[in-house]
């Protein structure tokens, strides 16, 4: 049995334990079945909503908003973080702003953005952008400052000019931090988008599904949507970012492999 299978089994065991606990509480009669449906009910709802395509569309809308916001956050955040680390003026200007804006929960901006940009994609994407950008900026900034000065010296001695120093030394040298920043940013985006969709989306989106289901006491749909949210988040976190990390900074020995 290789490490990969073993870690899958270990992950499976922890999920099964929590699911079993849920099932025991659900069947104990403490809550009415309408409020706390059993796992088979949730599973049936989930399968039905996937089969008729609605859940897939909701997920697609949510993913679209996250991806656009996330890519914009990287496009803004990476250059800004690098500029901050390289130019003291940019750092002096941006650092107080970031320190002041970063602690504001993106969710608390939803009502304001709704008034400015209305209900729908613009607002939700902007909320994602807000949630994601700071992690990218902050980590990129730290990463560039953490680049080993010896690499810069060695590259300089070999005749690297500013431009090539940047692309061939600073960017790869800062990559462990930049990847961590993206990872954090994705998680923050994923949390933010569901929140934003609850009140600033109409008709489509996993957050909207949950909020809409509340009106009709459809707890099975709410839980099914939560499972989808968790599953997609897991896939990105472990598979997408995990593979990026394995193919780059882990292969280069710049970070050690995660256990499990």
């Amino acid at each position, binding site marked *: 049995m290789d490490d990969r299978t073993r870690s899958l089994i270990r992950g499976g065991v922890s999920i099964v334990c929590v699911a079993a606990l849920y099932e025991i509480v659900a069947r104990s009669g403490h809550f009415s079945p309408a409020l706390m449906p059993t796992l088979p009910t949730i599973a049936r709802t989930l399968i039905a909503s996937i089969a008729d395509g609605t859940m897939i569309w909701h997920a697609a809308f949510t993913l679209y908003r996250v991806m656009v916001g996330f890519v914009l956050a990287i496009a803004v955040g990476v250059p800004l973080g690098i500029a901050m680390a390289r130019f003291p003026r940019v750092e002096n200007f941006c650092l107080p702003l970031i320190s002041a804006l970063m602690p504001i929960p993106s969710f608390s901006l939803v009502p304001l953005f709704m008034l400015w940009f209305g209900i729908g994609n613009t607002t939700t994407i902007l909320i994602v952008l807000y949630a994601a950008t700071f992690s990218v900026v902050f980590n990129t900034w730290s990463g560039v400052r953490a680049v080993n000065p*010896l690499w810069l010296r*060695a*590259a*300089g001695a*070999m005749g*690297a000019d500013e431009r090539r120093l940047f692309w061939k030394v600073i960017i*790869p*040298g800062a990559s462990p931090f930049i990847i961590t920043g993206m990872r954090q940013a994705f998680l923050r985006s994923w949390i933010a988008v569901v929140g934003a969709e609850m009140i600033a989306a109409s008709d489509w989106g996993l957050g909207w599904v949950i909020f809409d289901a509340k009106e009709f006491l459809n707890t099975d749909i709410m839980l099914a949507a939560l499972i989808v949210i968790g599953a997609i988040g897991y896939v990105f976190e472990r598979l997408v970012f995990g593979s990026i990390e394995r193919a780059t900074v882990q292969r280069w*020995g710049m970070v050690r492999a995660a256990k499990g």
Partner: protein
Amino acid sequence: MVPIEISGVTLTYDTPSGKVPGVKDISVAIKPSEFVCIVGPSGCGKSTLLNMIAGFLTPAEGEIRIDGKKVDGHGLDRGMVFQDFAQLFPWRTALGNVCFGLEMKGVPKDEREKIAREQLRLVKLEKFCSSYPHHMSGGMQQRVAIARALAYNPSVLLMDEPFAALDALTRDDMQRLLADVWRETRKTVIYVTHNVSEAVYLADRVLVMSPHPGTVKIDLPVTLPRPRDPLSIEFIEHQKILLDHLGHAAGGGAQTQHA
């Protein structure tokens, strides 16, 4: 390959507690293809001097000329090897690291890889072209660093205690290897060390520096035939002479140099 003239070089460091003399009025002429070791106690300015030759530091007074050309910043006429293993780029393979200088020079990919392979063969690492630095031992990483510094064919090789962080056995191997590489390439080498036997093993000439301020105290030629035998009487004689000078240079504190 080319001569180096160091004339009247002085450098002071600005520290929070005032100006600290780094090196003072150093003049040395180094012949083409000469292997020069600089030894001295910590703080004698030997690394400062090397960094000025490398162009990382600019002397306050005096000048350094390599092949008649005044040193102004770093240039591809000099290759540099540092003490720290972390000098290699971890995101590049051994081959990728050795290619770096050639890439900066604009050498086409096929050609630079051919040259890089040749350099890695010179340091006996041809089998590890596609290995990443973190899979290599410290000695192997330092050999890659030497290959990297030689790849773009600089006429001068500057080495700042490259083997100081290696264990004694590996260090002996590396010294033999470096002596071979030098014999084959005939670069002018300036090598900073605090290890006396290393200096006697490698150098044509040893400069002993003394601190406060950093000056060259003695300029000792080593004319023993190569390859040198560290157990021969003459070798030990040379070591003894150097240690005596170092004892003076360090104010009697040279006992630590035996270690």
